[in-house]
């Protein structure tokens, strides 16, 4: 195996490691707040990956200043747009998850989803 490309693109590797951390936290943590933190790490890792894909070394953000309009001067703006869209999505799902967590906490005074499930089974609702 040749790992030289991995070292060359270490930023992407970092993004993927962060994605893995976030994904496993969202899947495996019992505490709901930790799950939500995992969700945010996962989404942020995606934005890091996307932003890296749009960045071209030595170029600037695509905002026209001083009349420079050459394509060569700017980075690719589409991934940045995708990141913005993604942030909106992740903010709304985070808000929804937090509100669900508050509801569950008021009812059961715990953040442990498994304990809530066992209590629900006992209630036999």
């Amino acid at each position, binding site marked *: 195996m040749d790992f030289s490309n991995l070292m060359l693109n270490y930023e992407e590797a970092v993004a993927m490691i962060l*994605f893995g951390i*976030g*994904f496993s936290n*969202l*899947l495996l943590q019992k505490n*709901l707040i930790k*799950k939500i933190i995992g*969700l945010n790490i*996962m*989404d942020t890792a*995606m934005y890091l*990956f*996307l932003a890296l*894909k749009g960045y071209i070394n030595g170029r600037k953000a695509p905002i026209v200043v001083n009349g420079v309009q050459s394509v060569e001067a700017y980075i690719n703006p*589409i*991934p940045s747009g*995708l990141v913005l*869209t*993604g942030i909106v*999505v992740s903010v*709304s*799902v985070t808000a*929804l*998850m937090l509100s*669900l*967590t508050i*509801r*569950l906490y008021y*009812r*059961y005074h715990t953040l442990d*989803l498994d304990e*809530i*499930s066992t209590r*629900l089974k006992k*209630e036999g*609702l």
Partner: protein
Amino acid sequence: MAFVQNFPFMSIILSLFSGPLSTVMDRKKAKIINTAVLLILTAMSAAVLVYVMGTGESYVYTMGHFPAPWGNEIRVGVLEAAMALFFCVIMLLCMLGGVLERELELEESKENLYYVMVNLLLCSLLALIYTNDLFTAYVFVEINTISACGLIMIKQNGRTIEAATRYMIMSLLGSGLLLLGICFLYDLTGHLLMSNIQQQVRILQETGAYHVPLLVSLGLMSIGLAIKSALFPFHTWLPDAYGYSTVSSAAILSSLVSKGYIFLLVKIFFRVIGFDIVKNSKVVNVLFVFGIAGMIMGSVSAIRENNIRRMIAYSSVAQIGYIYMGFGLGTTDSVVASIYHIVSHAATKSLLFVAASGITDASGDSTSFFDLTGAGYRNKLAGAAFTVGSLSMVGIPMFSGFISKLLFAQSALESVNKMLPTLIALAISTILNAVYFLKTVIRIYAPDRKLASEKHFRTITMADQPQKAAALILFIILNLALGLSSQPVIRLIRSGLSMFS
């Protein structure tokens, strides 16, 4: 450009904007607006279908007249238009069938929020069906998830909130993987429009470059959407979500929400990656194995269930397994069978949920099997409808479920390695389906007058619940129509799929 060509875009926008309008109305007006919008959307989708079938080819609608690689696009072919029409009809019937429950179970101030969720859900489903842009698809997948979560938890008790949380967690895992797959694909091809990605993927395939990343991207998107549509090992949220939410939510969730994701997966297979690449990859084998496991395990869990709503929910797990098994077989015929099963399952499962609510109404709102004895006599129409749904699920000729099983079996014969497992799994699953569905049918037609008079169960006639009766009759007609005249539907799916590539 014909005026009809604007309809797909208009229907998405109409259903998006009627949502906020419902929030400021009182419940009566919100209900009227919702029904009117659903009717208009149905009419629009029908007009689009007639138009596309008339011209015989698909068309691309550029949003804001920005040309291809930059602008956002809507693409309409026969299959898209037919799916949109079908989803609108099922949505209308589900809403009609659950009117009474919504009035009883939801808080008065929450009911117009329900219509917001329904409108948003339909908007996202239509966008998923029509869009030609992969990132737009991702955004609407998330909107779909959020509004489905609202539909689950709008009837507030501990169970539904817990189910909604579990649903959100699973869905977010799935959409994380989907987004990762889309980003990889964007990275490899530099495009987000499906047709442009496909051109680039063809070039990559010819040069043999980036073979592994392409495969990883396909795998991530497939698994992400499989998680979101509750393929077998990821189905833990499903029984609670379907079993305790209000009846129209359960019907909509089981028949539409998961199907929207599956339809997106079909589009990814055919329009983004190209089906010849997909069927030669190992991804289909993974889907095949999980699909077969789901067919068996879903039915086994359903047999052990004593609650009629949860039993129907577990049966959904089995039926989703059928659909993924069809993808796993990896031939065009098997995908046609899968799409037919999407249609037939959506029609049958919503019928079963609405019929089950009619049966439980006649059993003192109890969902446990013991109280259901003889319910078929107390609510004759719901009993008959439940029987029709059960026979269709088991796969008796005349009903739609039979046709999809026949199509699966026929398409299995084409592939040498997967023929035997498919046929065995189909046989076992049919027997298991028969065990739990016919068990229920026998129970609701078992004469037990003592129980009914002891517990003072009321008898329900069609006049007591006119909306539900109308919905059930229309569902039965739809089911029989799909079962008796399946050839036009299959031809339509075939021509739609050939328009895809």
